[in-house]
């Protein structure tokens, strides 16, 4: 019984908490001009919803590429001797796919120190 009741109670608590937080943060009283973006008295011509480039993105791609390489290489090194050329071919394919990410990072200038 507890196994069924506990999750339900937890879910209900979570919902109640969410609604309470929403009520606390509610700004129903803010007027339309009060909610407009602050531009020092000016008005925007374009909607504020826009795409913004994450500048660390190429660096993150590079990090993940090398990290995944290492993550796979440790267990691969353990079984390499008994598995033989098949393991070598698999690692070659894996590195081939990862190197696309590294080449992409290269093109984006991630290896250029600025």
């Amino acid at each position: 019984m507890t196994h069924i009741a506990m999750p339900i109670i937890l879910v209900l608590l979570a919902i109640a908490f969410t609604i309470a937080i929403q009520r606390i943060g509610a700004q129903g009283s803010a007027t339309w001009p009060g909610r407009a973006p602050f531009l020092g008295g000016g008005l925007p011509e374009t909607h504020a919803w826009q795409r913004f480039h994450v500048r660390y993105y190429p660096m993150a791609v590079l990090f993940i590429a090398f990290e995944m390489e290492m993550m796979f290489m440790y267990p691969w090194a353990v079984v390499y001797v008994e598995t033989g050329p098949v393991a070598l071919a698999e690692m070659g394919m894996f590195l081939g796919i990862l190197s696309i990410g590294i080449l992409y990072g290269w093109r984006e200038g991630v290896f250029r120190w600025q």
Partner: protein
Amino acid sequence: MSLLSALARGAEIPIFAATGTRGLALVERLARRPGLRLVASPRHARVLLVAGAVDAAHQRALERLHAQVPPPRGTVWWQAPPLFARGETVAGDDPLPAIRRAAMANDPDQRPDVPPHPWQGMGPHGQGGTGMMGGNPHGRPMAMTAEDIRDGLALDAYTARFGPFLPMLPPGLVMDLTLQGDVIVSAHVASPPFDQGPEGDRPAPCAARMLRLMGIGPRAARARGALLALSKGSGTRRRLSAWLRGEEVTETPEPLPDALPGLEWAEAVLWLASFPPSRLRAACMQGQAA
């Protein structure tokens, strides 16, 4: 008076200063007074302080600021004729008592409670139209990608009218800017900065304003290497150093539409603040006349 309200009276009053004609030196002097705190956004303020006269052309902008101070709000017109019937007028040198009274006040709304842009669109939230970015939510089109001038990354171009009371821009300066990320792509001066008089060109208020924009205190500015954060080659560091030594700066900026594109927002803000207000005003007016 309860203990709580007595404690609350001792708290700093967050004020948003809308600087008008000859108001820059007034605001910089006021910023050093204890008991109040200049905030960078009206949303963080309790009191809207209009320091120095503002011409009637900017009344709508002031009204928008007034609406953006969350209620309860107060208004003080310091050495400025009121442009709308809210708050208190102070003609003298000390607005602090009036600010304290305004911190207790609760001005009614000045702007009508209607959307600033007319509603356009098919759906209940202005959505609709063709494509993923279709529709005009609240009458403002979505930003679309445009050619990038920095590094070839095509980002969304955001166009807006900034000023005249944006605290990081010289008071009164209204610019139509197009930004891609934080890079200024194009700039057009719609209205020159307000006249600040010879008082506004003095080294002390100019240096104080620039240090406030950089977020470092006056003592920290004397530390070795404090100004190294300013970009090299733009002359910003040289001019601030001159002000800190107490020397007047007499350089005139090149026209803003030529100088600003390519700069990042933070660089542009400090570049603009590194010129004496009178020189900047002259350059903007020359550019408008041309």
